[in-house]
């Protein structure tokens, strides 16, 4: 049954992707991209990757769509007609797809317990996590501790993306600004239904975000997801009440401090490990009991991740929003 559902979803995914490429209206493309992300999130969920599904739903379908719409407001709604042919890209994509399909014949069956991916490092993680870290969610253990250095890298990817957008958009606009800022700043204040529903939703989004943040050791979730969810809550607030109100609540300087502070918090936990006699990102030395040290380290770095992701997404959102 689950296979049928998965095939159905994947078919929809391909159809959506083709539709995104074919449509010439960029607004339609953005909406289809949101649908694509939602389908992708469902797929991840079927594959038991609930953590990734959460991120994809919050970032892909949520924040990215808003940022795309913000970018769309700065440019035209219609795609420019394509001058050069699409045959070369089409050929490259087809060849790539064909070879990937060809390679899939020799791959172990999906979910095969005897597959190498389940036989080498995974059993060790399953077996040792209880002893070393003692948290139920092993995905969090892998992300935050065993491969915490990769996660530190990913936080800096978010950081790099954020400073990239702020850097590029800090050039003053070429054209003089249109004087439509009056109806922009008020958000959706005059639309009653979104206003009522949105106001009801915002506190629950925050609550859910905090739950995902602090429940990461026990269930799916963690800093990336929580940061994105809280950012969607604040962006929703900005859409309802106007961007100025959101900036009033959390000024840009605070956002900047969040982006830098979260990344620094993560890094400093690593450095603390070094100073206390372990290696970089060794949380065991943070406490006299190594297991509690690991748990402390994970909570701290997840907080760092959440703060940076939330700050970065909001900074990017404001950078786009203030230009139109």
């Amino acid at each position, binding site marked *: 049954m689950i296979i049928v559902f998965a095939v159905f979803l994947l078919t929809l995914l391909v159809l959506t992707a083709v539709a995104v490429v074919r449509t010439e209206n960029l607004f339609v493309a953005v909406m289809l991209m949101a649908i694509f992300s939602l389908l992708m999130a469902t797929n991840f969920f079927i594959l038991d990757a609930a953590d990734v599904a959460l991120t994809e739903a919050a970032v892909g379908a949520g924040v990215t769509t808003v940022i795309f719409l913000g970018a769309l407001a700065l440019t035209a709604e219609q795609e420019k007609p394509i001058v050069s042919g699409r045959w070369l890209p089409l050929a490259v994509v087809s060849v790539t797809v064909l070879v*990937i399909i060809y390679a899939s014949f020799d791959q172990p069956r999906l979910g095969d317990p005897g597959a190498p*991916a389940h036989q080498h490092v995974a059993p060790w993680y399953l077996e040792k996590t209880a002893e070393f870290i003692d948290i139920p969610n092993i995905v969090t253990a892998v992300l935050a*501790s065993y491969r915490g*250095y990769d996660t530190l890298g990913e936080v*800096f990817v978010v950081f790099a993306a954020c400073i990239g957008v702020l850097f590029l958009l800090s050039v003053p606009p070429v054209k003089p600004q249109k004087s439509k800022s009056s109806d922009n700043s008020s958000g959706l204040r005059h639309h009653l239904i979104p206003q009522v529903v949105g106001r009801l939703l915002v506190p629950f989004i925050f609550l859910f975000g905090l739950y995902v943040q602090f429940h990461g050791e026990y269930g799916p979730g963690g800093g990336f997801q929580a940061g994105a969810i809280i950012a969607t809550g604040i962006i929703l607030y900005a859409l309802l009440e106007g961007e100025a109100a959101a900036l009033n609540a959390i000024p840009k300087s605070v956002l900047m401090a969040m982006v830098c502070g979260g990344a620094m918090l993560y*890094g400093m936990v690593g450095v603390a490990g070094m100073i206390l006699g372990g290696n*970089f*990102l060794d949380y065991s030395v943070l406490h006299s009991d190594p297991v509690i040290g690991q748990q402390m380290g994970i909570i701290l770095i997840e907080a760092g991740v959440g703060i940076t992701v939330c700050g970065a997404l909001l900074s990017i959102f404001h950078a786009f929003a203030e230009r139109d």
Partner: protein
Amino acid sequence: MNITPHLPALQVVVPILSAPIVLLLRPKGMAWAMTTVTSLMAFCIAIAIVSGVQQGQVFNYLMGSWSAPYGIELSIDSFSAIILLVVTGASALVLIGARRSIDAQIESHRQPFFYAAWLLVLSGLAGIVVTGDAFNIFVFMEISSLASYVLIAGGPDRRALPAVFKYLIMGTIGATFYLIGIGLIYIMTGTLNLADMEVRIHEVADQSPVLLAAGFITIGLALKAAVFPLHLWLPNAYTYAPHVVTAFLAACATKVALYVLIRFDFFVFQQNLSGHDLQFSYFMIPLALLAALVASSMALFERNLKCLLAYSSVAQIGYIVLGASLVTVAGLTASIVHIFNHALAKGALFLAVACLAIRLSSTQLTDIAGVARRMPWTMAAFVLAGLSLIGVPGTAGFISKWYLITAVLAKGAWGIALVFIIVISSLLAVVYIWKVIEQAYFREPQQANGAVREAPLELLAVTWVAVLANIYFGFYPAIPVSLSSAAAELLLGQMPQ
């Protein structure tokens, strides 16, 4: 706390954790000062690592104290050490002289972002080089790529934006291909640690996912390294980037992608995939030769100085690939020495261009007419670095050409044809460097250039440091050559002969 065992981690941690601090430094000049100091520290760490490696010390570092392959392992050998030297050296040297050039090109309120991005590029590249984990390479590739798009797009020239967009798309495709390759290998072996992968891939080496992974990884990294014909993103990105950014990136960004390409291929694939050495040679040698010939010819017709040098870089990448694709110790040594020497030569050339650009506000060939009279030191530096690029005896460039030709000749009759092509390509280099020299020395200066002075002292000084390094390593090539030959022995060490 004894700092020596932590050196591999500090090589990345010091610059990466300085980036958020730099971003918050608002006072004028502070961001530059901190970036430069951090970069110098990174360079000192690299020197410490190199001297350790030369004394036979092995640097392995377990991140979070988790043993490999469960955690992430950093491992540094002589190959990584020489690349670290190039990356951190280029960054430190360029930064010392860069301040006025950056002030001229980037508004002061945007500079903290710029310097933070610079540190991210540095730590990303260093992170790729020190790690022994395939997925970790991808993570740091993302950091360095994203940040280098930011640096390139930073200049006042709006044409940088389409150029960087092209680079972004191409670079993302390259990184995605690499990731697909890693994913396929993970499916078949269940490991991401390179040393572990080397062992475990042996049993499944004949299966299609592994073969495909080899293809995806090679093509993806070739795209990142601008191996001909996947170089299309490079000329415009280098041309329209801020001048000092070009000097930094031209010296090391593509080299790090080549480093991963060579390392992955020789450690994981060459010794496990049957017939891979021949396939690698037959696939890469023609591309390398075409790169040397076609890109050099393109450089002949360029009217923009930076674009000319960018095409020359594509040709030089061809030499590096040529050396590696011979799959011999001599060839690999030549290739790695050339990574080092080309970074020196091209870094010096682009620094000289930055000197010119800060006074002339243009990099068009026609605008540098007669400039040698006004800026004699800059042009003298350009000439000497150009000689190194061509490969004239007494310069670093000669050493690598010499090693390359020796390695190629060892291949017998084929080799003579290859040498012929190398010589033609070098002659083309003579022509395009001469084109610049002719403009600068033998043309009447333009009226508008009447008030042009010599470049700012600190920029000129670092240019000359780079030029003198070219000459020094031309006469005393012991350090790069010993590191390179040790690296080549290591790469080919476990090959079934």
